[in-house]
């Protein structure tokens, strides 16, 4: 049968109630200034002329007719490409509180149309699972009551640093000390590391703000925070600056940015904090970086050594490598050699049931300086939704397993394990991080939490915003478009970085003091942990409490 073209409804037609966010617009308050339509990153709203029929009945003349009124209003687009993402930029710029997006509490239909043109959904953000996660439910319950040593978090001296880099067994250390052998490099850092977010994924202003904040933490506040570049290199002026010591340089499968880095080595004033070799990412295991052409600006193209405006999908694996063993042999040693064996080199992998095998490989490699394991709740600037939501391994049990494996070998002090993936997902960054530390991590990496807390990233696990991948970040955090990123003031970002780390530092003391710990980070102090979930307690080897 021929379809009735007069009814303009097709299979993909949607109405307001089918969308995840519905724009509520009050015409009585609107001044038609146009700020909201100009700022909307999705062009989800538009100024529209509407005509309203006004029926007119003249009883005396016994005639009836119509008059028409025209008016201007804000309307929401209902096609997928322009569906509102709930960022609320419209309400932030509205001078008259006339507009805001409201979440659609009904189930919505867009879920079924994220595959138009055969293209599955890609986005930024994290696994869309909200609510308290396992880490949020862990309690610190070995309160030191018996011999009254409860410490004063405000007055006692606390040592909150951790070691990044390989540490020798004491016997081997003394032997090399006597014989003048090589002692692997280590760094003493704050256990909360700003995780890898590339110069490319982040805007220049965001990156600059982070770096300024990190430098302030180190040089003024005395909190030795380090940050990781992610794949894609580092601005040359940073490579040649004294701030390089606060930076972990990442090399990943695309090797983007490493031409610049290698060329800058002779001119470096100091060594970088470490080198991170990315083999996997918790948010999208099996995927490499996915910088889309929208974000490959002139600056990014120069840093990465590529033409402007082309997609930069990094391959999922390091193409030159045959296996992790080979990688351990080649890459770690090569990177260590490139920096004169003075910089710790460690790999980053996605959390996985096979993480222990990788770890045991590293244990036997004298150049490996640690292992970073990134769990399924980690964030990303760009990935397929299915990878983010369904692929990967939660971090807690993975880290615990790896730590206990090291304990069985007596190697837990030699290879530090760092954990990442969902730390601070619900805002409890210190609690999450300290729980992982007591499960055996030497420290944690936080990325998404940093974007949210220092720059006001609006993304959440209920599909809000999460458009980092297409370079339209309404806050200018993950965009390479100057019109967008100039919204972000690097100085204010830096201020927030210092506020966040001061607060984490105080909260860490507040967690450690009642446990009677102050002199060393309580790595592996699993006797301090409890959870009211028997299965989780058994799996993690901590106390079940109720």
């Amino acid at each position: 049968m021929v379809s009735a073209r007069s009814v303009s409804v097709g299979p993909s037609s949607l109405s307001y109630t089918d969308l995840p966010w519905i724009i509520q617009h009050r015409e009585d308050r609107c001044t038609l200034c146009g700020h909201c339509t100009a700022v909307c990153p999705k062009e989800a709203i538009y100024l529209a002329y509407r005509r309203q029929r006004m029926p007119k009945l003249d009883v005396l003349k016994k005639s009836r007719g119509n008059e028409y009124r025209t008016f201007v209003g804000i309307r929401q687009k209902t096609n997928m490409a322009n569906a509102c993402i709930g960022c609320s930029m419209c309400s932030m710029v509205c001078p008259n509180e006339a507009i805001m997006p409201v979440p659609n509490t009904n189930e919505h239909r867009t879920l079924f149309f994220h595959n138009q043109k055969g293209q599955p959904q890609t986005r930024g953000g994290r696994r869309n699972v909200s609510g308290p996660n396992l880490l949020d439910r862990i309690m610190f319950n070995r309160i030191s009551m018996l011999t009254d040593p409860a410490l004063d978090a405000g007055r006692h001296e606390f040592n909150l640093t951790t070691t990044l880099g390989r540490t020798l067994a004491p016997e081997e250390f003394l032997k090399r000390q006597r014989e003048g052998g090589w002692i692997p490099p280590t760094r003493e850092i704050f256990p909360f590391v700003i995780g890898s977010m590339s110069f490319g994924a982040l805007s220049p202003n965001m990156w600059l703000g982070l770096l300024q904040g990190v430098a302030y933490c180190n040089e003024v506040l005395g909190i030795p925070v380090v940050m990781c570049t992610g794949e894609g290199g580092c601005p040359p002026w940073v490579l040649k600056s004294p701030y390089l010591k606060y930076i972990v340089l990442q090399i990943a499968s695309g090797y983007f940015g490493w031409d610049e880095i290698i060329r800058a080595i002779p001119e470096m004033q100091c060594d970088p904090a470490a080198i991170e070799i990315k083999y996997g990412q918790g948010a999208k295991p099996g995927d490499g970086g996915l910088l889309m052409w929208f974000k490959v600006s002139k600056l990014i193209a120069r840093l990465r050594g590529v033409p402007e405006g082309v997609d930069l999908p990094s391959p999922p694996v390091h193409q030159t490598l045959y296996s992790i063993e080979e990688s351990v042999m080649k890459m770690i040693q090569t990177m260590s050699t490139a920096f004169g064996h003075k910089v710790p080199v460690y790999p980053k992998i996605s959390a996985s049931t096979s993480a222990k095998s990788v770890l045991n490989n590293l244990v036997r490699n004298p150049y490996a300086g640690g292992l970073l394991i990134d769990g399924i709740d980690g964030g990303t600037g760009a990935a397929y939704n299915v990878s983010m939501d369904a692929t990967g391994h939660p971090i807690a049990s993975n880290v615990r397993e790896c730590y206990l494996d090291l304990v069985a070998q007596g190697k837990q002090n030699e290879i530090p394990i760092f954990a990442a993936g969902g730390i601070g997902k619900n805002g409890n960054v210190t609690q999450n991080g300290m729980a992982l530390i007591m499960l055996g991590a030497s420290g944690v990496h936080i990325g998404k939490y940093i974007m949210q807390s220092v720059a006001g990233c609006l993304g959440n696990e209920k599909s809000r915003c999460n458009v980092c991948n297409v370079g339209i970040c309404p806050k200018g955090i993950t965009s390479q478009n100057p019109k967008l990123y100039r919204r972000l003031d690097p100085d204010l970002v830096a201020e927030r970085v210092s506020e966040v780390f001061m607060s984490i530092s105080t909260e860490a003391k507040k967690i450690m003091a009642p446990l009677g710990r102050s002199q060393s980070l309580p790595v592996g102090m699993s006797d301090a942990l409890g959870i009211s979930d028997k299965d989780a307690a058994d799996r993690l080897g901590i106390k079940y409490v109720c």
Partner: protein
Amino acid sequence: MCRLALKTAIEPFSPYEVLTAMEAMQEGYDGSGLGLLLRGLNFDDFKYDSKNPVLSGIAHSEAAWQRLNSIMEQRGYELQYDHKFETIPSLVEAKDRYRYFLRVYKMPAAFAEKSTEEIEDELMLTRLFLRANGEENGNDLTAFSFWPDVATIKEVGWPLDIGNALTLHDNRITSRVCMAQGRQNTNYGINLYACHPFFIQGIATMTNGENTAFVPIRDWLLGKHYPGYMGYQSDSEVFAHILHYTLKQLKLPLQAYKHIITPLKNAELDKHPQGVFLRGLRDVCRRLIIDGPNAVIGTLPDETCLLVMDHKKMRPATVGGRDGAWAIASEMCGVAAMIPDRDPSLDFQPMREHTIIVPPDRKELTIWSQLDPYPLAQVA
């Protein structure tokens, strides 16, 4: 609260003296147990050669007693002296004490060809074998120490009652060093092995306070897979094992102990003449950092005594004495009770950086500070 008392003197004295000193410290103390460790032994009815090992422990049944005899025989040890305590069982809470034993053995002839280290390992393994044998048989055999010139007594109950129960006041046993601790266990279940002092290969320590970093330290020591690093019924046992690890495994001087358990701060290390080495030592031994609050009192095979505090110095300990006799106690009144004829104004309470060493000549104290140059030439 744990009460600790150590007396060291050139003239042997009765352990009962130390027990009475503990009475002076009874305030705030639950009297739940006693651990005694004696060194420099003298028996009034036996001329003891201090090279011969002494086995100390409790047999809880006749069967255990017989097993003990046959095990020692099988391993080639020849019994030289069997000290029989005059016991008054009614003063002891537990009712399954068949026999407290303290027996001197002669080492097997085959040991003549073994190195000192091999002999020391064999002595430790024998003690561990007896312990395991007891545990396999419903805990009917408890072995505390097996080492030349060291005797150990542990029991649940009020310290003076236990001293009376074993008639320790009869002067049949005297010693030049006596360590006493009066509490069964601070943080975990009541267990005879949980009572301080802890002993491993001639090294003994006792501690007050709570070891808040116990689990990570224990996990690391267990990972060494060294047979003697076991037990851990008490969180304080690790202090003895760290001292053993420092001296026997790493073969570092005694001063390294303090640098390992409470390393200096970065700013202090920056100024220290061997700061680079000590920073490295801190990093490689990071899992052995104690977090207190503890005072650790220890003795070594050459009768050296030591006292160190944790970094926060939140537990008390005092040392005092005179040429020839010194006392270390958790309370000042304990020192006064053990050595009344001293100048109390010279009593010393160590700060966080100090290691107090009473050398075997017992002439004067050494107060060694972590900020002083580290005494190992090759690292300078």
